[in-house]
């Protein structure tokens, strides 16, 4: 018997987190993610958990740090400006090797920006979530059902490697309702290491655990950074997720994630109907990035088109992954504007016509 429910993306995140054992939520309300804390405030007390509205995002992320240090599963959520406020705490979480889940339901920026959907935090999420040499495990769902599954996956990866995970979505995915089946979404669970490092009290039975991100001795700090980089290498080789659709014979490959990928799928269907061979590679993990899949596609594709709700933040990653062997162009809207499938289709046709005219010249 499946548990198919019609839910908002934000609600599915919260329910999935509770289902996979997250009983602690600290956050501060902000559109368009407030349903996450609203859901947590209602549900967590019913299951013996704690939902606390902090006085600010800065406080919330430090409460997450404290709870994570004690060894419990914990999360926070916010939207773009709120996540910027959390960046110091995120860096401390990384420096302390603490697992947790942070959700960013993005809105238009910079600054206080707007409240409509955007993907303008890609570079922040994948390259500079905080100071220091750091990465988060960054997942970008494209449907409400996938949001639930990736919450579970992100928690498990965070616990396995002792790093924070970030779920990067946007206002449209957070606000929209779709059916979600929690039984299938949450079926992929893994055996997790014991949190024998946690500062959870032990009645004097062992040497005390210290959770800390301060290393005044440079060689000790360097060792801790390099040890973390080794874990990052393992994550890069074993935790990449992506989807390929119609990519096998494609001349044009669209690279898009999250809600943009959905819009592109509609455009691809229309383009295929008029005989244009176009496909999609959808990164599901934004870090680690699906470099190998893009490298393989560069063997046969003639052109890469990046589509995002920003001004082209992922373009460099596509160029690196494909070794710039093929032209990479960009199409997108930002600030809360969404392109229509027809807009993307027009871009595909333009590229297709260019390829054809080059063929004639050659």
């Amino acid at each position, binding site marked *: 018997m499946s548990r198919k429910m019609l839910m908002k993306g934000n609600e599915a995140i919260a329910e999935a987190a509770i289902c996979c054992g997250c009983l602690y939520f600290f956050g501060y309300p902000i559109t368009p993610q407030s349903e996450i804390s609203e859901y947590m405030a209602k549900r967590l007390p019913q299951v013996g958990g704690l939902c606390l509205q902090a006085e600010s995002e800065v406080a919330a992320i430090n409460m997450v740090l404290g709870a994570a240090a004690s060894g419990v599963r914990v999360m926070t959520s916010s939207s773009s400006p709120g996540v910027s406020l959390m960046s110091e705490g995120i860096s401390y979480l990384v420096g302390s090797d603490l697992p947790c889940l942070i959700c960013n339901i993005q809105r238009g920026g910079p600054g206080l920006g707007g*409240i409509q959907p955007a993907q303008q935090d890609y570079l922040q999420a994948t390259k500079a979530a905080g100071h220091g040499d750091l990465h988060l495990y960054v997942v970008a769902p494209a449907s409400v059902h996938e949001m639930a599954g990736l919450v579970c996956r992100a928690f498990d990866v965070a616990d396995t490697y002792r790093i924070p995970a970030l779920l990067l979505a946007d206002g449209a995915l957070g606000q929209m309702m*779709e059916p979600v089946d929690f039984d299938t979404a949450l079926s992929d669970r893994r055996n997790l290491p014991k949190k024998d490092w946690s500062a959870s009290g032990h009645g004097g039975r062992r040497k005390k655990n210290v959770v800390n991100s301060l290393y005044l001795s440079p060689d000790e700090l360097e060792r801790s950074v390099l040890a973390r980089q080794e874990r990052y290498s393992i994550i890069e080789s074993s935790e990449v997720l992506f989807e390929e659709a119609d990519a096998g014979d494609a001349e044009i490959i669209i690279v898009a994630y999250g809600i943009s990928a959905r819009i592109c799928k509609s455009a691809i269907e229309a383009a295929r109907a008029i005989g244009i061979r176009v496909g999609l590679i959808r990164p599901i993990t934004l870090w680690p990035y699906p470099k190998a899949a893009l490298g393989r596609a560069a063997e046969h594709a003639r052109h890469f088109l990046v589509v995002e709700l920003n001004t082209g933040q992922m373009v460099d990653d596509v160029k690196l992954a494909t070794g710039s062997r093929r032209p990479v162009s960009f199409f997108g809207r930002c600030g809360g504007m969404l392109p229509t499938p027809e807009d993307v289709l027009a871009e595909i046709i333009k590229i297709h016509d260019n390829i054809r005219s080059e063929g004639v010249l050659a």
Partner: protein
Amino acid sequence: MTSRILIAGFGGQGILFAGKQLAGCAMHKGRHVSWLPSYGPEMRGGSASCSVIISDKEIGSPIISQPDILIAFNYPSFLRFEPSVSEGGLILANSSLIGSKSERDDISAHYIPATEIATAEGLDGSVNVIMLGYLLYVTRLFDYDEFIGSFLSGIPASKSALIEGNKKALRLGYEYR
């Protein structure tokens, strides 16, 4: 087969709720479905809309630029979205608040004075359910009994007092000629 339904009106008319009932019934029937609300600094009396897509296949973009069905609850929504309805599409308009008629000849338009019916029957808050009943009659999108089953299953026990009014409102819309 894909139906792209845009529901639009004033905040407070139950626009999002109406869309959710359609999405819920489609889900119970095993169809693919998406429901996307307008959100923002919305308020009672401001504008509200939601996009519902019901399909036999996986849904790409949840955003509707050209609806197959427009359910317009008020005049500003009618003015704004009437031109975007796809060729061969359908408009259902609440004629209590929409004085003019569509002049397009490539779509079909149907009018129901839903606000007046609701007021006359003491169902002031149920304009949305009357519109849903009319939608079922005009489009046969769902079987009436199937829809009412799905609709009532979503009403919690604490609000069982609302069941009779909703059933009556749905019937009034369904039987309007």
